């Protein structure tokens, strides 16, 4: 919508204003050698020197553990309590990456394709995403291969791109974004049309295209490549839990005496138990079939059914994997598989 410039030293002033005004601001905060999105109360606590956080920011709309409703037995009656979504907090996600922002796309589709998930939608509607374009990338980044890019604005409300040490380009993309700009109007000036955003972005080679993968997958359900690729996979849920688009969940009961809650919590298709039937039968009995499911779901089933890919190329799963299941590497092999 609008291209503005903010002096680098003004960014803190602006963020401080946001923190003061908005009930909750999430931003990357250092934890050990890595960083995670956490609520910040001080503009100084943001970690800018990391490429991405370990976990994605999806928990802001789809928490790891959330109550769906509560109940209480009173004599023979049962009382049901709903979640008070009006108490959900307006939230600014500060210093998201383009690959974080774009992740809300698949999530929103998953939570709305038939049943409109009220809790997700209520949480999501309260989010304002301020992304920072990437000037650096690592060996796990592959957004350009899945239709994204270091300056991709999709899903963001505002995108900041550091042009040089002094100036940062501010692209205001939505009304929600504009409201944040309005909090500190004096900090911004109009951007010159000559500012070339692309030139400062990280260079991330394209290793394959989504379409290539989509096409290959159509023929490779029975391919031995799944077994070969998944041999070292341990079957933990780290990849799914850090993924910005993985939305598998489990519904559990937290019951104590005569009262309890129904709880939704994250799950992973990589777990053996995920598809285990009560009978003992498991339609995905081996890690190979579960790995296949993970790739197929993101690159075949989702585009087919929801018209969107389930991967943003953020590379988090590769970074989190204890045995280096590098997804970009595996996808390249699939793309090149005869």
């Amino acid at each position, binding site marked *: 919508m609008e291209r503005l410039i903010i002096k680098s030293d003004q960014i803190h002033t602006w963020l401080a204003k946001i923190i003061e005004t908005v009930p909750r601001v999430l931003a990357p905060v250092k*934890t*050990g*050698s*890595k960083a*995670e999105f956490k609520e910040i109360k001080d503009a100084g606590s943001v970690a800018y020197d990391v490429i991405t956080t*370990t*976990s994605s920011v999806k928990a802001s709309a789809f928490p*790891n*553990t959330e109550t769906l409703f509560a109940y209480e037995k009173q004599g023979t009656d049962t009382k049901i309590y709903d979640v008070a979504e009006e108490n959900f907090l307006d939230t600014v996600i500060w210093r998201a990456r383009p690959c974080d922002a774009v992740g809300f796309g698949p999530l929103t589709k998953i939570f709305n394709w038939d049943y409109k998930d009220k809790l997700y939608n209520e949480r999501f509607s309260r989010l304002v995403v301020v992304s920072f374009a990437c000037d650096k990338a690592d*060996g*796990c980044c592959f957004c350009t291969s899945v239709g994204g890019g270091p300056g991709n604005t999709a899903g963001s409300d505002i995108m900041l791109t550091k042009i040089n040490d002094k100036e940062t380009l501010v692209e205001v993309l939505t009304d929600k974004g504009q409201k944040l700009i309005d909090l500190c109007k004096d900090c911004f000036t109009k951007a010159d049309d000559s500012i070339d955003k692309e030139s400062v972005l990280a260079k991330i080679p394209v290793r394959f295209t989504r379409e290539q993968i989509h096409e290959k997958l159509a023929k490779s359900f029975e391919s031995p490549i799944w077994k070969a690729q998944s*041999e*070292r996979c*341990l*079957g*933990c*849920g*780290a990849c*799914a*839990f*850090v993924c910005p688009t993985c939305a598998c969940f*489990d519904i*559990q009961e*937290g019951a104590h005496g005569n009262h309890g809650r129904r*709880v939704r*919590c*994250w799950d*992973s298709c990589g*777990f053996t*138990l995920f598809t285990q039937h009560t009978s003992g039968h498991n339609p995905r*009995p*081996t*890690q*190979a079939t579960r790995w296949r499911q993970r790739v197929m779901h993101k690159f075949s089933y989702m585009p087919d059914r929801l018209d969107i890919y389930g991967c943003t190329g953020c590379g988090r799963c*590769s*970074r*989190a994997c*204890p*045995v*280096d299941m*590098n997804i970009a*590497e595996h996808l390249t092999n699939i793309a090149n598989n005869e």
Partner: protein
Amino acid sequence: MSKLSEKAATLLSEGTVKMIIGYEQGTERPRPAFCHKPEDCERLIFNDQCSNNLAVYLTKKEIIGEDKVGVVGNYYVIKTVIQLNRENQINLQNLVVMTVDGDDIITFGSIDEMQQYVDTHEPVPNEKVLAVIEKIDKMSRSERWDYWKSELSKCVRCYACRAACPLCYCNRCVTEVNCPQWIEPWAAPLSNMEWQINRVMHMSGRCVGCGECAAACPLELPIGILTKKMGMDIKNTFGGWKDGSVLSTYNVNDKENFIK
């Protein structure tokens, strides 16, 4: 071709084993490698960076199948094989256990040989881990509670710690038992702690100290500290224990000072 690759290729080509599990170079550090054909073996490497505990694959039927396999592992792999053997989880007949020592490739002929190797090659303790333990030990009780509560609140229950641990081989983990629901299955501060307490109790006397649980944690939670500390406590309390289990054995002379 390195000596290691040659040895592995020979084992495969001569049909001694059907598969070799070793290490190959990964994105940023070495990772597990599976060689089925002699030519796969060129990828094999072995260096200080090779930290994955490959023994984790030895209890996975779908990986090792019914055939004889070879494993070229680090110190902890050897130590784990000894423990897995004690726990009836592997068939030594179908296993060739190797390690690399300098230029030499050592093939172990028996558990005794492995034990001897393990006894004589103990790695130096990780100073960082010891320093954290010392730090925590010095905290007051409520500081320790706050520390662990805040650290473990971050846990997302992806169970990478469990998956990476070669001794967490249960078909059904206690976390998956729901009659009764011993541990609430969702991520929450207390259930996260309970999970770790269970993990540590289940590892007591069995843990080989490879630290893969901590290495696997995507959130870098200090869970390796727990097993390490447990190992140290057990060593202090029960002296050198060698039989691979503390909680399934006892000594009438066990000394405690809290049962009154």
